[in-house]
């Protein structure tokens, strides 16, 4: 039975040896020699050191192209012209599906063509030495960002290649990304990844791990996202991870976003072992963007303003070209600089928002209930708890494509634009908390003169890309101004 216990050394070794043969670059991986490479890097490229010692939110974009030279050029641009503090390397989709043969074809095609035939950097195909060329070529630390359910070989190659931060986790890279991987399978695979990070960490090379907070990116209630972060953090800590960055995706309500980030930090410190350093990352809006760069810049601006108030350790920025998919490097740098301007103008201001404490308290109580359900479902074992809780729907994620989650939970915004739960499914929440959600949604229904229904959910999903926060019924344009005048 799969349990939350540390993977034995010989087991780690055995799996690593098997994986080595999945693709030829696996054979280049030499742990001792990799430690020596990491030790040769300056402190300014140590991801955990840079992140954990920052005194203002650090900015990091997303970016990945197939070829090494172009990836270096792209990251250098984002570092120099965008002012990125931390750099990414986004991995291509074939690698995410462990289709290294197809990735190899795409890489070869990209080398012979001005177009990119892959949607990211196939790090396994590039192998250890090319990863190191990338790490050497840039000044800032670089993280592997991907979405790979089975990221074991990717971790072996990239960590040996000098990367010191690795995104993902068994739930957060399963539920939103795939349909049929079981949670038992991804948990087992991520135990290997986390144990590998732990092995580096024990040798003095701290590998930062970052569970993917936004999950499905679509109106995820903060308590659900935070519970998944805590569970993944606990699983990683068991395997020896000591630098954890817990994530949260902007929902667009200033008070709820600040409260959620504070709750995330506070609960992270409460649940995770004392020897783990917990940091937080705020993802700018992950839902649909307006098809208009000016309005998209507005969405990004609100993200920057929220970050200035909440002060997460890191912000993952969006670009004004988000709507059309992969942005140009110029647009990517624009998103960084718009975010930076908001943070720089606001961060020294004393901004004391009313209602944060109440919202934070509600988020923490709700998260506690979900965590209790996980512990109960596993009779104390987190792995069994996660499997059983997702199986029963006691823990659930809205809009999950995966069969591993019930996907019965449905969120909707309340009259203030905060994300509440409209349909609970079997989510393990006590009645008093359900009552709060229902009553807030009832307020909205009264304002709009309609019943609470899936229509609100559908309207809310499209609202921000339509230029609003709340999906109010159309034809009633008076609502915006009618709800309480601040003066």
């Amino acid at each position, binding site marked *: 039975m799969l349990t939350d216990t540390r993977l034995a050394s010989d087991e780690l070794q055995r799996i690593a040896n098997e994986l080595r043969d999945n693709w030829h670059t696996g054979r280049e991986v030499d742990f001792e020699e990799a430690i020596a490479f990491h030790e040769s890097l300056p402190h300014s490229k140590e991801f955990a050191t840079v992140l954990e010692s920052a005194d203002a939110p650090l900015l990091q974009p997303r970016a990945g192209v197939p070829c090494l030279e172009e990836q270096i050029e792209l990251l250098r641009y984002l570092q120099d012209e965008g002012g990125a503090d931390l750099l990414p390397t986004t991995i291509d989709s074939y690698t995410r599906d462990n289709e290294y043969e197809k990735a190899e074809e795409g890489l070869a095609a990209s080398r012979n063509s001005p177009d990119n035939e892959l949607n990211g950097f196939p790090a396994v195909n590039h192998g250890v030495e090319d990863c190191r060329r990338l790490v050497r070529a840039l000044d800032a630390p670089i993280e592997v960002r991907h979405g790979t359910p089975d990221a074991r070989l990717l971790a072996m190659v990239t960590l040996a290649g000098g990367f010191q931060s690795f995104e993902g986790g068994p739930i957060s890279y399963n539920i939103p990304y795939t*349909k049929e991987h079981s949670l038992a399978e991804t948990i087992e695979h991520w135990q290997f990844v986390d144990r590998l990070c732990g092995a580096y960490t024990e040798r003095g090379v701290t590998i930062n791990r970052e569970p993917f907070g936004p999950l499905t990116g679509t109106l995820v209630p903060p308590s659900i996202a935070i519970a998944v972060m805590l569970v993944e953090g606990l699983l990683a800590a068991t395997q020896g991870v000591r630098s954890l960055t817990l994530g949260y995706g902007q929902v667009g309500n200033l008070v709820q976003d600040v409260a959620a980030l504070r709750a995330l930090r506070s609960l992270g410190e409460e649940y995770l072992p004392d020897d783990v350093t917990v940091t937080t990352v705020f993802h700018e809006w992950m839902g649909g963007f307006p098809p208009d760069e000016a309005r998209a810049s507005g969405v990004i601006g609100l993200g920057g303003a929220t970050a200035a108030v909440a002060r997460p350790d890191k912000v993952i920025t969006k670009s004004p070209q988000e709507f059309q998919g992969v942005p140009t490097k110029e647009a990517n740098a624009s998103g960084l600089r718009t975010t930076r301007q908001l943070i720089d103008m606001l961060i020294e201001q004393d901004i004391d928002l009313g209602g944060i404490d109440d919202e934070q308290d509600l988020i923490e109580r709700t998260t506690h209930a979900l965590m209790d359900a996980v512990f109960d479902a596993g009779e104390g074992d987190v792995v069994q708890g996660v499997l059983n809780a997702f199986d029963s729907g006691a823990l659930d994620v809205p*809009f999950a*494509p995966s069969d591993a989650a019930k*996907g019965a939970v449905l969120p909707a915004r309340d009259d203030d634009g905060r994300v509440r739960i409209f*349909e609970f499914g079997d989510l393990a929440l006590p009645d008093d908390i359900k009552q709060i959600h229902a009553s807030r949604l009832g307020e909205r229904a009264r304002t709009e003169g309609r019943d609470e229904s*899936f229509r609100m959910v559908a309207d809310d999903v499209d609202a921000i890309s339509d230029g609003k926060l709340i999906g109010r019924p159309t034809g009633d344009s008076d609502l915006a101004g009618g709800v309480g005048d601040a003066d």
Partner: protein
Amino acid sequence: MPETVILGVIGSDAHVVGITILEQALSAAGFEVENLGVQSSQEEFVEAAKAEDAGAVLVSSLYGHARQDCEGFHERLEEAGLDVLTYVGGNLSVGQDDFESTRERFREMGFDRVFDAETDPEEAIASLRRDLQLTTTEPEAVRVDS
């Protein structure tokens, strides 16, 4: 007995929001819904329709490859001896084709109705009721009867 409707996203497409909301809407309207979820194959649709003795199959596609993914679908249904109502909806073509020609193409492939991505769930439900010749069971009417 409520009519059963099969729902799913065809091909390698992982867009889940639309069918999640549609499932809720159909359930609320009194249909029995079998939601196959994202990345469903033609075979899965056919098997589910047969197993559930479904009245309608609703195929969703949002990533622009609907035509390839639906090629031969109606032949499979026929082979399985199924005479079921079929709808398709979403972003059905990659290019800038006008929707009328897209609709025409999918009608020729055998779909009874073709919807664009802006369609409200209510519209699909109203069509289903008409096509399945269901009496509209308004909640009020039910209450009077019971």
